[in-house]
């Protein structure tokens, strides 16, 4: 049996898994450098495997590779960095590159919504909380991971399943699933790709007609979560931390005679 793209992808993902395993913080003895090398190799291999499939090369392809590389590297740093602030900022990077990918897929509205909601609101709130909860030295929970091997194994299994399926897909002659099997949804909410209706109008129509119930429920969900968050934040909780013994102020430092 000749190796298909799917088999190659198994190898690539295994390599990447080992890289991520090495990169995860494990206290002393993390092999960060080796992990970075392996992860970079896996990334390069993934791109070259995918590049074999690409027939037409244009600026979209180039942008796709640039932004997907940034997104993947950023995601790796999100889960491997020992400082939560950096994790959050790398996540902003992931969001921006994902937004760029959405623009490549002509989903401009969603791209900007992603930036506004994630980068503009959610991540600022995350940063706010991280800053409030920061400690002087990196706590042990940031320096040591929890069962990194099993976690990476779970990730690999997931990826392997996807790779197997994608490997099958690559053998198909057509590039798009749509041509192979038009779904019911395609028939109902069909929007031609090159229409004079802009993306914003199209998504508005879809949300306001077909998904109006879901839209209303989403609004209610937001309201509920807002109420919940306010209720949580309002609650005064007794702290369980023991106040550490403080040296009385007069005993800190040297006695200085009055001038």
């Amino acid at each position, binding site marked *: 049996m000749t190796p298909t793209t799917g088999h190659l992808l198994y190898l690539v993902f295994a390599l990447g898994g080992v890289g991520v395993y090495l990169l995860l913080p494990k206290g002393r003895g993390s092999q960060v450098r080796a992990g970075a090398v392996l992860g970079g190799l896996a990334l390069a291999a993934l791109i070259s495997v995918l590049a074999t499939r690409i027939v037409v090369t244009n600026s979209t392809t180039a942008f796709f590779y640039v932004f997907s590389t940034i997104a993947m590297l950023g995601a790796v740093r999100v889960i491997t960095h020992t400082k939560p602030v950096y994790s959050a900022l790398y996540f902003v990077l992931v969001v921006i590159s994902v937004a760029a990918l959405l623009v490549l897929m002509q989903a401009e*509205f969603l791209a*900007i919504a992603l930036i*506004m909601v994630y980068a503009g609101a959610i991540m*600022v709130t995350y*940063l706010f909380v991280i*800053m*409030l909860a920061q400690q002087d030295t990196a706590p042990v929970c940031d320096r040591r991971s929890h069962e990194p091997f099993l976690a990476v194994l779970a990730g690999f299994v997931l990826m392997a399943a996807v790779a197997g399926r994608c490997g099958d897909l690559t053998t198909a002659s057509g590039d798009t699933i749509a041509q192979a099997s038009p779904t019911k949804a395609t028939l109902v909410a069909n929007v031609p790709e090159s229409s004079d209706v*802009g993306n*914003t109008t199209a998504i508005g129509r879809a949300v306001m007609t077909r998904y109006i119930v879901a839209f209303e429920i989403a609004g209610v969900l937001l309201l509920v979560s807002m109420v919940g968050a306010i209720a949580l934040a309002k609650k005064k909780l007794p702290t369980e931390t023991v106040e550490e013994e403080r040296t009385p102020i007069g005993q800190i430092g040297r006695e200085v005679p009055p001038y």
Partner: protein
Amino acid sequence: MIEFLTSQFGVSAQFVVSVVLALVVIGAMQGGVAYCIYFERKISAWIQDRYGPNRVGPLGLLQPVADGVKFFFKEDVVPRHVDKVLFILAPGMIMFVSLIGFAAIPWGGQLQLGEKLVNIQVANPDIGLLYILGVASMGVYGVVIGGWASNSKYPFFGAIRATAQMISYEIPMGLCILVVVLTMGTLRLEDITQLQTGYWLGFIPQWNMFLHPLAFLILFICVLAEANRAPFDLSEAEQELVGGFHTEYSALKFGMFFLAEYGHMITSSALITVLFLGGWHLPWFSWTQPEATQWYAVVAKMGVISAKIVVFLFLMMWIRWTLPRFRFDQLMRLAWQRLIPVTLALFVLTVGLLYFGLHRSPVWALSGNAVIVVVMLVSAGTVGKEVTGRQPNLPRIQESPGAAALAGV
């Protein structure tokens, strides 16, 4: 030349115009920002009965050059206790964000190039308005990262204040912009400008300012808060926080924070101009009508929009040197208890008018605004706490036990 480029390299005329415009706008903005600082100092001086900078060059006009040289050659101090990477990243980030907001502003309508009409706009995306909002929402990162990376008390306070302030004021700002979007029915800034070029009763220009004055006012307030301008400059508050988020910065990095603030002001002014003041449109002047597409019309339109931006810049500076700074709880209460309810009411009003198809009718919109103002006045007079006054969450003032306790010891 454009014909040559389009024929030889296969680029569209719009692309060439966009690239040229991007370069011109960024260049003009750098100079404009430098002269904003000059005029800020001049205006502050005039308000305080002084001369202001008048030493470098005639009338002090070369002061920005001198400032720039100083920013370049001062010692660039990076304190030892900072988080180096983020400390260096923050000014670049804030500068970048303040520069890219320009891309969607329509500077001069359309230009006839041979057969084609090109937009005098770097990009005219379907989502122009959202793009500017998205970029503006990224603006807080520079402040937050700078404040956090400085690893020092006052910058940290500045960063915390900046986050809370920006998130709070984005809500009324977004609602005000939504009012315009609902009225105009498009997110393209060029279309929004063109829709404002008509006249009511034959002589009142159809600017949104006359349709939704309340939204215009509130958007202006929110823009002040978003650009960290007085009276909302709590994140840098010299008197309490030394310099807030940029306390630890010096030389060129500080200069970038400084320039970014003015860049932000220019972008916001341009946005308000386009949304509420008809962009490049000047009534009764045939060169600034949408039909005029000659090159001199484009120049005239650019002049008009720049003049409107300058008016807003002057207004911002005037306000800065007049009003004292808010206290933080006042700031928050203004946003959450005053502006957000009012803008929500405006939003509901606009939706209602839209339902009856009256959204472009000034009589209905203005009377709706008037009703909201009256309700606001009555509610401010009867219920709710005033924005000023003592903070409600502070403990009551009690006689200090200190002296008695000391006497007992």
